[in-house]
């Protein structure tokens, strides 16, 4: 079979089993678009801005575990995609981004729409390629998918000059089944000796704590994790990225940890004697003050990326390997061990934890005459039976969604945790909704974030994506406002959003349904009415309390036991003071 470069590219995507290609055409990729024209296996989704193409592919990848695929043109097409590539890179999301490039003959001549895409994306990709010979094209695409989706996943860029896709030049096509790279062989299986040492340590722990991250979700380690935690009876917390890997409604789950983590999770981190970190990377939003991080604990760290180990926190027992493989081996050892977890000590530990729990740190004013953002999330949880895929943008609404939705399954909570990209939520929801057309997909956002990619409402109409947009509209860039209240003596410098559009009319002009909700008493009925419209995109413009803050909060650089608490949480009790 003789094919042109453009046809080879499309055929590679078919052979790779790619369902959706998120993209935007332009001069350098016109040959490729022509090759896409007469086929239906790879469905192209035309976004309205290249940033959205990357976020949509990213959302698809996070929800399905399969790499997301993007096609953009050279120059501005590539630069617009950079934010989305960096977003995927920070959260280790498998993605293959094909960027068009000017013809090889004019590379370096400042040609029209020329940019050094390989150079610009280098610091925010797992790897990238410039294809200089049509004979390398198929193998390069194979390598791109292989690198993107194995080891610690990440985005890979393939830059394809226009002449490589020239329809008049055809070569025999062969897509390799496998690809071997001498310089890339990710470790999967953990070191047995280290695993045994770790298990021994766990079985001797008196105040253990399990701390899990996005690696459990990415590595599909949720089942093994549940077995592991239930067998040991240990308390477990999760980072923002790991939510859902362990069910939020389970009694062993203490909630999220870190800057906006629960009181009980952060206190347990501070006091634990053995910390088991699984697929987490000790991010600064999690550790707080490094010098006071888990001061009494011996630390076990399981991660597929050796460079994550002892990067910020020195650990005692590092285990490099994939989360499910290592946990499976641990579960096997635990099941066959004559030793059991320290039952008595654990009972004492749980008593202390229950004391912290009784502080009810997630309390808020339930009798307010304003709509409380937390109540919106709780109600959305109820209406969707906790089964929705929830994407978010970045800010207060993101934290409330993480804290109050209560994810019981992995891959359901989709947000930009590492880079913190506003504008992520709506396009990411498009990718999720395409992957799961029958499921409810909710985009929790704010009036600030949604405006960063609002043009995608048009894409949603074109492809009939019935996303439910829950916009917590407090007329402020809420998280900025909160920091200004706490740390800048209420000087609200440029955090107030004036001149907001009428979101209902705006949504309607895009051909969707808009619902504005202003009073707490209308909230349930209006949400139920909107969520009942299964085949329509509904934008809920919800007017929430302007000055609500996200609690608890550990200020940047403070220790885990130093939290700002909600004024509605229970006061410290004497018994608890004694214990902590």
């Amino acid at each position: 079979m003789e094919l042109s470069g453009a046809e080879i590219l499309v055929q590679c995507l078919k052979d790779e089993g790619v369902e959706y290609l998120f993209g935007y055409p332009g001069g350098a990729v016109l040959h490729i678009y022509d090759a896409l024209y007469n086929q239906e296996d790879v469905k192209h989704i035309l976004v309205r801005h290249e940033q959205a193409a990357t976020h949509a592919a990213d959302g698809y990848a996070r929800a399905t575990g399969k790499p997301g695929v993007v096609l953009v043109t050279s120059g501005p097409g590539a630069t617009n995609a950079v934010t989305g590539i960096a977003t995927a890179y920070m959260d280790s999301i498998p993605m293959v981004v094909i960027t068009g490039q000017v013809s090889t003959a004019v590379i370096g001549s400042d040609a029209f729409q020329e940019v050094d895409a390989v150079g610009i994306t280098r610091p925010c990709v797992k790897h990238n390629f410039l294809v200089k010979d049509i004979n390398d094209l198929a193998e390069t695409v194979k390598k791109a998918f292989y690198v993107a989706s194995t080891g610690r996943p990440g985005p890979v860029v393939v830059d394809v000059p226009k002449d490589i896709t020239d329809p008049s030049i055809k070569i025999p096509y062969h897509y390799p089944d496998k690809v071997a790279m001498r310089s890339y062989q990710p470790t999967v299986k953990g070191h047995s000796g280290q695993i045994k040492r770790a298990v021994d340590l766990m079985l001797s722990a008196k105040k253990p704590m399990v701390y899990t991250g996005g690696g459990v979700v990415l590595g599909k380690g949720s089942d093994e994790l549940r077995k592991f935690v239930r067998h040991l009876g240990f308390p477990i917390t999760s980072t923002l990225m790991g939510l859902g890997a362990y069910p939020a409604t389970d009694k062993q789950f203490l909630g999220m940890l870190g800057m906006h983590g629960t009181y009980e999770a952060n206190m347990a981190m501070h006091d634990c004697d053995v910390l088991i970190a699984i697929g987490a990377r000790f991010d600064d939003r999690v550790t707080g003050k490094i010098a006071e991080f888990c001061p009494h604990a011996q630390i076990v760290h399981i991660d597929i990326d050796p460079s994550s180990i002892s990067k910020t926190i020195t650990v005692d027992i590092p285990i490099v390997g994939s989360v499910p493989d290592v946990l499976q081996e641990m579960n096997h050892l635990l099941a066959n061990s004559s030793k059991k977890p320290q039952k008595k000590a654990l009972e004492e530990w749980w008593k202390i934890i229950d004391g912290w729990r009784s502080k009810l740190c997630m309390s808020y004013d339930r009798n307010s005459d304003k709509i409380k953002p937390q109540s919106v999330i709780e109600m959305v949880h109820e209406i969707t039976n906790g089964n929705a895929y929830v994407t978010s943008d970045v800010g207060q609404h993101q934290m409330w969604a993480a804290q109050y939705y209560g994810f019981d399954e992995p891959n359901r909570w989709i947000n930009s945790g590492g880079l913190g990209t506003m504008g992520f939520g709506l396009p990411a929801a498009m990718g999720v909704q395409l992957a799961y057309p029958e499921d409810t997909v909710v985009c929790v956002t704010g009036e600030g974030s949604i405006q960063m990619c609002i043009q995608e409402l048009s894409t949603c109409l074109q492809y009939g994506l019935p996303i439910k947009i829950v916009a917590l509209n407090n007329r402020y860039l809420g998280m900025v406002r909160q920091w200004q209240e706490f740390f800048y003596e209420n000087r609200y410098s440029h955090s107030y959003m004036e001149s907001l559009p009428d979101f209902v009319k705006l949504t309607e002009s895009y051909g969707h349904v808009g619902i504005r909700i202003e009073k707490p008493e209308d909230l349930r009925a209006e949400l139920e009415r909107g969520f009942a419209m299964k085949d329509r995109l509904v934008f809920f413009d919800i007017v929430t309390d302007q000055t609500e803050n996200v609690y608890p909060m550990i200020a940047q650089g403070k220790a885990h036991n130093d939290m700002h608490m909600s004024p509605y949480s229970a006061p410290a009790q004497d018994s608890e003071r004694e214990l902590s």
Partner: protein
Amino acid sequence: MRHIISILIENEAGALSRVAGLFSARAYNIESLTVAPTEDPSLSRMTIVTNGTDRIIEQIVKQLNKLIDVVKLMDLTEGPHIEREMMLIKVKAATMAQREDVKRLCDIFRGHIIDVTSSTYTIELTGAVSKLDSFIEALAEHKIIETVRSGVTGIARGEKSLHL
């Protein structure tokens, strides 16, 4: 502490900028960097001299290993090794006295005069960094017109080697 990291890297366009970019993006120090192809033309050998605490060096090694183009690497300073740097230095040598003194110093340091004009000598000198530094110091009384140093390259002593 000073470390010499030897790297076998795919001899491909952009490989060098991946390494250089890693150092600048993560604010690691580079004292010197040399690179050239090996007997296998698909591989380049790179030698980086860097410094940092043990924790930073550990991260540098891990981050370098993580680069897809890096095939293998070794911290030479972890074992017995030989390091060499080459220098070309052009010195003013116009008078008889200057010419004699420069020649004498060159002999003492076992350098070679590789280019001569009526007013200059160009000397080639190879050795450890400290030897080259000492030679420059010894030339203090003379006018140095130009100095070119290759940066450090190195190799492990004995059986130990960095190869595929």
